[in-house]
C-alpha cells in the first residue's frame, strides 16, 4: 500500500469550490446544499453509498447536469460548465468507471479524439504518439500508442484513460471508482501514479467505497449520505469504522464476529472439473476443491477468471465437459438445477435480477419460487395461499426485508433488500451447501452487514459455503480458507489466518505463490 500523502496546508486556496450545490430530480433530492472543494496537489475523496449523490455532483462538475442552486468556482472565478467540452476547456478531466475508450481505435487515436490536429483536417497521430511516449516515460505508464484498445488488458486501458487526461493537461481530475476492476497490485501501481500526479500540483477527486483504499490514498475525505454532506474528515482523524458509520448513519460492523467452528465432513467435493464458456473456450480447467461442513471457502479473483462458470456448473445451469461434483455424497455434475437443489444445494447468483429473482413478481412470489411445488405450498396442483403468506411474512420479518408488503413488485425494492429476499429464500430450503456469488456487490453497507451475519450464523449451524467474491475485504472477513482463481484454475488455497493481501493479490494476477512474497514486487503483465 502507498503511504498517505502529506496533507496540504489549509492556507492554499482551493482550485475548485462547489458551494451549496442542490440538484432535484422528480421525487428525489439528489444533491442537497453540498459543499465540496479541492486544493491543488491533494487527493480529496468523495465517499458514499450508491445513491448518496456522488455521481450527480460529478456530472454537474463535468457539465452533464446543471445545478438548480449553488455555484462553482475555479481558481476563485465563478464558472458555468455547460458541457463536457466546457469542462475539458477548464482543464477538468474525468476517468469514468466504465472506460470511455473506442475499442477499434488505437491508443493514439483515442488520445487524439476531440482535439485539434496540427495538420488541419488530417490527423496528426505521429505527433500525438510522440507526446504519449513522453507522458508514458515520465509517469511510468507503459503503453504502445499504435495498438488498438481492444487488444489491451483492463489495467492497460486504464493507463490510456490516465494518459488521455494528462495529454489534455487536466489540472483537476475525477477518478470514478478506478480500482473496481484492478488486482490489488494494479491498485498499488495506480496509487503511485496518482500520488505522482497530485505532487505535481494537480487536484484529484477520488470516488470509491473501498474503505481501506480511501484511507490509503486520501488527503481529505468528504462523506455523502442521502444527497447531503455527512461530514468532512481526513485519514489521520478517522478510521474505517467511523467512515462506514458516516456513510450509513449508524454504527456498523465491517467484519462479523466469527465464532470458531471445527469443520466437519466434506459437503462439496469437486475434482477434475472442466467447464466451457459461451464462446466455447475452457473457462474452468481441471479444478479440484473441497468445502466442509461448518466452513466458508472464499474464491478470490478478478472477475472473468471462471468464477461464474464454476458456480453455474455446480448448480446445474451449465453442464461441465468433464469432472465430478459431489454434494453430500451425491454426484450432481451434469444434473439439472432441480436435482442439484434436491441434493442439498442452494445458490445466490451473481446477477440477482437476471438469475436470482423475477423483477415483475411480488416479494412473496419470489420468496417461494424454489419451493412452490413442494407439498407444503401446493396440493393437487393448486398453490396453498394461506401457507405461502404465512411463510413469506415470517421470512420478511426474520430477514428484516424493507418492503411495504409481500405483494410489492420485487423490482421496486433496493438491491440490498432484493438480495435479502434471495438469501432468505435460499436458506429457507435448509441447504447443506450454499454457493454465494458476489452476495454483497452493489448492496448498501447495512444490508451487507446483515447478509454477512447470516452467512456466519449458517456456518455455525454446519452449512458448507462457497463464497465467490471480488471484494477482498469480504473474503478475508468471512472465509476460513481462500482459494485464488486465475484463468480457470485454483492458483493456491490458503488459510485465511496465514494469508496476506499481497500474497492473494499476486496469485490473482497469476503469479505463482512465493514462500516469502517480497513487498513491492512490480507487476508487468
Amino acid at each position: 500500500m502507498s503511504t498517505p500523502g502529506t496533507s496540504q496546508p489549509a492556507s492554499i486556496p482551493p482550485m475548485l469550490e462547489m458551494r451549496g450545490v442542490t440538484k432535484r430530480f422528480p421525487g428525489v433530492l439528489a444533491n442537497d446544499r453540498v459543499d465540496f472543494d479541492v486544493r491543488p496537489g491533494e487527493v480529496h475523496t468523495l465517499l458514499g453509498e450508491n445513491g448518496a449523490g456522488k455521481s450527480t455532483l460529478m456530472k454537474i462538475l463535468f457539465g452533464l447536469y446543471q445545478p438548480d442552486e449553488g455555484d462553482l468556482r475555479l481558481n476563485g472565478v465563478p464558472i458555468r460548465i455547460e458541457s463536457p467540452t466546457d469542462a475539458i476547456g477548464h482543464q477538468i478531466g474525468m476517468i469514468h468507471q466504465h472506460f470511455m475508450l473506442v475499442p477499434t481505435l488505437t491508443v493514439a487515436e483515442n488520445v487524439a479524439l476531440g482535439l485539434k490536429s496540427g495538420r488541419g483536417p488530417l490527423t496528426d497521430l505521429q505527433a500525438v504518439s510522440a507526446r504519449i511516449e513522453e507522458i508514458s516515460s515520465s509517469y511510468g505508464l507503459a503503453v504502445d500508442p499504435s495498438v488498438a484498445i481492444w487488444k489491451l488488458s483492463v489495467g492497460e486501458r486504464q493507463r490510456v484513460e490516465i494518459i488521455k487526461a494528462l495529454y489534455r493537461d487536466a489540472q483537476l481530475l475525477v477518478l470514478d471508482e478506478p480500482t473496481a476492476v484492478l488486482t490489488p497490485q494494479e491498485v498499488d501501481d495506480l496509487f503511485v501514479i496518482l500520488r505522482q500526479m497530485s505532487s505535481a500540483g494537480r487536484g484529484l477527486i477520488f470516488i470509491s467505497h473501498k474503505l481501506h483504499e480511501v484511507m490509503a490514498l486520501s488527503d481529505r475525505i468528504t462523506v455523502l449520505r442521502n444527497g447531503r454532506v455527512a461530514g468532512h474528515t481526513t485519514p489521520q482523524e478517522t478510521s474505517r469504522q467511523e467512515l462506514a458509520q458516516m456513510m450509513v448513519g449508524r454504527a456498523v460492523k465491517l467484519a462479523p464476529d466469527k465464532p470458531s467452528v471445527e469443520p466437519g465432513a466434506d459437503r462439496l467435493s469437486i475434482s477434475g472439473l472442466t467447464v466451457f464458456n459461451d464462446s466455447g473456450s475452457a473457462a474452468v480447467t481441471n479444478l479440484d476443491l473441497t468445502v466442509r461442513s461448518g466452513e466458508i471457502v472464499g474464491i478470490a479473483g478478478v472477475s472473468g477468471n471462471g468464477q461464474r462458470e464454476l458456480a453455474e456448473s455446480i448448480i446445474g445451469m451449465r453442464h461441465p465437459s468433464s469432472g465430478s461434483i459431489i454434494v453430500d455424497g451425491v454426484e450432481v455434475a451434469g444434473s439439472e438445477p432441480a436435482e442439484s437443489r434436491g441434493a442439498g444445494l442452494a445458490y445466490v447468483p451473481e446477477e440477482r435480477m437476471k438469475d436470482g429473482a423475477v423483477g415483475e413478481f411480488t416479494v412473496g412470489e419470489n420468496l417461494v419460487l424454489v419451493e412452490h411445488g413442494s407439498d407444503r405450498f401446493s396440493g393437487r396442483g393448486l398453490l396453498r395461499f394461506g401457507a405461502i403468506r404465512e411463510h413469506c411474512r415470517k421470512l420478511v420479518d426474520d430477514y428484516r426485508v424493507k418492503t411495504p408488503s409481500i405483494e410489492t413488485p420485487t423490482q421496486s425494492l433496493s438491491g440490498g433488500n432484493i438480495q435479502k429476499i434471495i438469501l432468505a429464500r435460499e436458506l429457507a430450503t435448509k441447504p447443506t451447501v450454499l454457493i454465494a456469488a458476489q452476495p454483497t456487490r452493489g448492496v448498501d453497507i447495512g444490508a451487507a452487514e446483515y447478509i454477512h451475519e447470516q452467512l456466519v450464523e449458517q456456518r455455525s449451524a454446519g452449512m458448507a459455503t462457497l463464497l465467490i467474491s471480488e471484494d477482498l475485504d469480504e473474503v478475508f472477513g468471512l472465509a476460513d480458507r481462500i482459494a485464488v482463481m486465475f484463468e480457470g484454475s485454483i492458483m493456491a488455497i490458503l488459510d485465511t489466518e496465514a494469508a496476506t493481501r499481497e500474497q492473494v493479490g499476486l496469485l490473482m494476477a497469476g503469479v505463482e505463490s512465493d514462500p516469502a512474497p517480497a513487498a513491492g514486487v512490480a507487476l508487468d503483465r
Partner: protein
Amino acid sequence: MGSFFTSAVLVATIASGLRLAIPYLLAGLGETVGQRSGVLNLGVDGVMQLSAFFAYWTVLETGSLWLGVGAGLAVGTVMGLVYGVITVTLGATQGISGIGIFLFGLGFSDLIFRRRVGTPKPIKQLPEVEVPLLSDIPWVGEALFRQTLFGYLAFASVPVVALMLKHTTFGMNIRAVGENPQAADSLGISVGRTRYLAILIGNVMAGLAGTALVLELGIFQQNLTQGLGFIAVALVYFGAWRAPGVMVGALLYGLVNATVLQWKAQGIIPREASDLASMAPAVLTILALVVLAGRVSPPAALTRPFSRH
C-alpha cells in the same frame, strides 16, 4: 456469334460491369460513411428513386444535364436532413424509419412522375468522357477510361472515403461516434453533429447514385432502381464497412451481371438456365455474406440512438 474470350467482348463486358457497378458503388460508399457513424439507412433506395426522378424531370424540363445533377444533389441533401432529424434529433428506430424513407421515395417519385410527366420520355444522356492518352491504351483504355463523369467520380470516391475515414480528424470522429458515442461525447465531440454530417454524406452520395443511374439510362420509370439501394446496403456488410471492400462488392455485382448478360447474348448460357443465371449476383452476395459472417463486426453503436441519460 463471337467467343467470350475475344478482346472486344472482354473489354465491352468489363465496361458494362463498371457501368452497372457505379450506382452500387456511390450508394454503398455513402452508406459506409453513415454506418461507420452508427446510423443505418435502409432508405437508400428511396433516396435514389427520388433523386433519379428529380434529376430526370429537371433535364426533361430544362434540357440541362448540369441542372439535373444539381437537382439530384439537392434531393440527397434534403433527404439527408430529413433522415438526420428522424434518427438523430428524434432518436427514432433506424430500421423502420429507413423503410419509411424507402416507401416514401418509391411512392412519391412515382406519383409526381405520373402527374407531371406521364409517359416515359427520353432525355439527354451523360456523355462519356475519354481521358486523354489513357483512353488510347489498347483494351485497358477502352474498358476503364471511357466512362461518364459519374464513373470517374465513383471510383475516385473510394480512396477519398477510405482516406477520410482513416486519416482525418473528421473520419476519426465518425468512427468514434459509431463505436462508442459516450466516449466521444465525454471528449467534447458532438455526436449529433458528427452523425448529421455522416448521414448527409450518405444521402448526397445516394442522390448521386440515383442521378448517375437515370442520366446513364436517359429515361425514368416507376421503381427505376429495382431495389438497387438495398443491395448497396448489403454491399456495405460485404465490404466489412471499408471503402475498398465495398468497391470489390460493387464490381463483383456489376461484372457478374455483365458477364451473365454477355453469355446470354452469345447463347453460352442455355435458355433453360437463363433464370438461374439471373440470380447469380444475388446468390454470390449471399454466399459471400455467409462466408464473411462473424469475421468482422459492425460498428458497435450501429442502429443505436445516442442520448446522454
